[in-house]
């Protein structure tokens, strides 16, 4: 389904000022940057099934306030290489490779969702990488998904196992299904029900590629939601409590958003690092920085002001 119209705009969206790549032990990760290259650095880590261009509105707002914003695509996501193997620890290590390639000095780190959770791990092991940490709804807690009993959890794990193995058996023949811009946006909508169709269509044009059959998401087709093995959301709280740096956490309280861990203020507050700031919004969904971009950007900039 070839189409001639291959562009979409979105108010405030800006392509990166610079692009490049990072080497993570032979794997190439795509890098995007916005803002003055000599400005203080803030690195942004996207969540699962996202890619760095999902910061196309948020990052320019931060950059316009005097920051150099750097973001990269996780392995298998966006314009980064597809890997043979994927795992939480490998993502964390890729983040380390990226951060070390950007600066030898501590920088500000910001992570959304899975990216925020992975930065919690990284900073527990490598605290000197950051001089401040912003976590946007990436604070898993042991209280997440309280309605799932053990039997149901086992059933879900078993189904996830089988589908994961089946997918890997078919890996050589897996491709992302082609569609129109509108079609891909519509298919993504269930993951992003609170985001506008206009935004999702824009995302297609920066997160999918076009060929003779139409548009296909760039993400490796072997990847799927879930599949974290024995990982427990509550383990992340140990990492949170271990932090010793300025910290801003922002939680979405929208319980019917299909994405995110649904942690509540009371789940997280006991584990905040000394002086840590936690904000909770029950009217903004999991993709806070996209749904309420200006509001969240201002919140982050206010937090960062003493660090300029």
């Amino acid at each position: 389904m070839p189409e001639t119209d291959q562009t979409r705009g979105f108010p405030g969206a800006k392509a990166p000022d610079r692009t490049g790549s990072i080497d993570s032990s032979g794997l190439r990760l795509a890098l995007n940057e916005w803002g003055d290259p000599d400005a203080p650095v803030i690195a942004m880590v996207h969540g699962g099934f996202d890619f760095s261009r999902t910061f196309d509105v948020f990052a320019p707002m931060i950059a316009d306030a005097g920051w150099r914003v750097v973001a990269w695509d996780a392995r298998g996501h966006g314009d980064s290489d597809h890997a043979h193997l994927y795992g939480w620890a490998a993502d964390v290590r890729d983040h380390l490779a990226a951060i070390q390639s950007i600066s030898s000095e501590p920088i500000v780190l910001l992570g959304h969702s899975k990216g925020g959770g992975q930065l919690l791990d990284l900073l527990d092991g490598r605290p000197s990488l950051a001089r401040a940490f912003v976590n946007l709804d990436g604070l898993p807690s042991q209280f997440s998904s309280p309605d799932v009993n053990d039997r149901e959890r086992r059933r879900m794990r078993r189904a996830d196992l089988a589908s994961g193995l089946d997918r890997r058996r078919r890996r050589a023949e897996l491709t992302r299904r082609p569609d129109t811009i509108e079609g891909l946006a519509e298919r993504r909508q269930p993951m992003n029900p609170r985001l506008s169709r206009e935004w999702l269509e824009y995302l297609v044009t920066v997160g999918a590629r076009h060929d003779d059959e139409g548009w296909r998401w760039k993400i490796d087709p072997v990847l799927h939601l879930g599949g974290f093995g024995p990982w427990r959301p509550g383990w992340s709280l140990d990492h949170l409590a271990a932090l010793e740096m300025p910290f801003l956490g922002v939680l979405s309280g929208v319980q019917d958003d299909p994405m995110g861990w649904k942690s509540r203020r009371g789940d997280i507050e006991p584990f905040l690092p000394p002086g840590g700031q936690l904000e909770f919004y029950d009217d903004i969904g999991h993709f806070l920085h996209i749904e309420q971009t200006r509001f969240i950007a201002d919140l982050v900039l206010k937090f960062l002001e003493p660090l300029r």
Partner: protein
Amino acid sequence: MTRRTEFLLNGSLRLALHTLAEGEGRPLLLLHGLGEQSPQTRPAWTNSWNGPVLALDFTGHGESEVPVSGGYTPEGLMSDVDAVLANRGPVTIVGRGFGAWVGLLVAGARTSLVHGVVLFDGSGIVGGGPQPPTPYVNVLPASGSVTPDPYALLELSRDPRPPDYALDYVRFVLEDSDIEHPIVVSARIRPDWLAAVAADIGVIELPLEQAIESFA
């Protein structure tokens, strides 16, 4: 016999599957420990097995291919064993160390294709313990084709193995299996996950050779 080697594909990665002994019937599949590789010849403790004896080199080990930039997880390496199951059909598994852990996982994930699993001592049997250890994050130089892949050694020696997670897989096996005792523990070393498995009412303990005989 001199072992015969063939290569299977897991995605685009080549896996070495060695035949250590020919025979008729269901194969016995040996899974090696962390940092090891398949034996060159049939181990004496398999002598009671009349069927074929196979041995798989995990990704990044032995003659199997090394992936770019690691990413090893026990769950990911289940697909190595699954590639053998897709190629050979049902097998009985003997896993050493790390191979015992993967053997249990894949037995739970592919209950119709794993006809019994023996869990035995070997390198990597402990893993990272019941909870994640303090994060150790380090970027290693690209290792090329050298095995064992340093990333395999790093990542597969630190994976958390909560006992209740292991017991989920025991439940998967016991719920589906038509064998009275489809999981046999022969290991003497008992990290928390394996102690929990051995204590499960549906699991028995036997010396290695007897364990293999029980599935022959």
